[in-house]
């Protein structure tokens, strides 16, 4: 998964007005979530309304960037942007929401990728967009 010459860049998101704050955050090294001011529900992906109580009174805050490995697959089929096999993972953030990501600084094997292992966010610069990825916490010094 390290940068490989000739590898195509990963498919990049196109931010919308409702998700712009998230992608502005990743660009400056912040993982931003939203919280409802009426019912305290913390949610992701971004939208200007609470999916728990329909309130429009929501705020953006910086998450800790810590989470754990909830589940994953290791894809063995070729992808133009990845050197396989590579893991696609669901991370459960300490604040509650889950998000899809890749796990870096870690062998892409069932032996190295242990469910519930602690993870921390890191950001991959792709020009205009920085993509949040996760790496093992406490493992790389």
């Amino acid at each position, binding site marked *: 998964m390290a940068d490989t010459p000739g590898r195509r860049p*990963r*498919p*990049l*998101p*196109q*931010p*919308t*007005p*409702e*998700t712009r704050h998230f992608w502005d955050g990743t660009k400056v090294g912040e993982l931003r979530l939203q919280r409802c001011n009426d019912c305290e529900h913390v949610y*992701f*992906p971004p*939208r*200007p*309304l*609470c*999916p*728990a*109580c*329909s309130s*429009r009174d929501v705020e953006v805050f910086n998450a800790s960037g810590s989470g754990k490995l*909830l*589940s*994953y*697959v*290791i*894809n*063995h*089929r070729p*992808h133009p*942007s*990845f050197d396989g*096999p*590579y893991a*696609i*993972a*669901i991370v459960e953030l300490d604040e509650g929401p*889950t*998000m*899809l*990501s*890749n796990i870096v600084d870690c062998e892409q094997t*069932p032996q190295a990728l242990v*469910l*519930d292992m602690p993870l921390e966010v890191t950001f991959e610069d792709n020009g205009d967009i920085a*993509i949040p990825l996760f790496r093992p916490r406490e493992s790389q010094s």
Partner: protein
Amino acid sequence: MTVAIVGAAETTELGKIPGLSQIQLHADAALNAFADAGLKASDIDGVATAGESPVNIAHYLGIAPRWVDGSSVGGCSFMLHVRHAAAAIEAGYADTILVTHGESGRSGVGRGGRGGGAGSLLAQFEGPYGSMGPTTMFTIGVLRYMKHYGMTHEQLAMVAVVQREWAGMNPRASYRDPITVDDVLNSRMIAYPFHLLECCLVTDGGGALILTSAERAADFPNKPVYILGSGESVETPMVSQMKDLTSSQAFRIAGAEAMRSAGIGHGDVDHMMVYDAFAHLPIWGLEDLGFCERGEAPAFIEDGNTRPGGVLPLNTNGGGLSYMHSGMYGMYALQESVRQMRGTAPAQVPGAAVSLCLGVGGMFAASGCIVMGNELP
């Protein structure tokens, strides 16, 4: 029964709205309609929309519907939605239905259509990570299930082995030669923990159904198969946003609704189909519909309960794993239920009088469930 409109609103602004994407225009109008009616999303149990998938709208607003309509026939779609909604409320399929429209026709912000463009939540928050469609995303919750419930790789493989047994009895099945657990585990790795033989086929094919009233049904040449009950739901367009990776909310709602409306219990079901795009789908289906306790379906299958001669014959055509899978396999699951209820299936279940057919849409995004019977209820 007369049905009424009790909330109505447009978006806060009209005209040129470059600050809102298309899905947020749907949501803005919906929130205004909620305010108009004094409701919130949790009060809504039916969703209809066009231009966006009803899955996207339900997930975005936080609705867990038991009735869904995505009829999309152009600008008059919403008239059809109102008509379908009135029929649904009369039938008891839903109590409170939301119909939404939103279109960034001028500014073109977040116009992805049903599949979702680069600005869709799916493209923004799942697309960058090398997901390759169903083989990587339908399957991603299974390691969590294995850790939580202790399912083994051998038990997952057993699903494919049992369905191959059924396929062996079906001359039209794509693959009919018996396989073993070792054959499955030695087949090519597609997306760990899934091997080739735990993934569905890719084939061509088609199917069609014709329905009429039970009164008229007696005049037709073949034995009528009666619709005893039905259910439907949607959860999320993004697997990573499922509330529980080891269970499908859409299965739970659709299945419970189908059994409730059919007035049947688990013991009444003689034959069952669960759309099996991958080997874990029958496990999710058996547990989410309550045929097994959570975590017990792998042993239920391993013990032979779903194989020929078992107490709950399941995927008797061989399923998506061995019979065929053209992409939208639900039609073939329905066809097998019809054959079983007519008594004409190649692997006919003796005396089967009630068949439950559970379908999945997207990757646990949606579900539809039909209960059929061979006698007039």
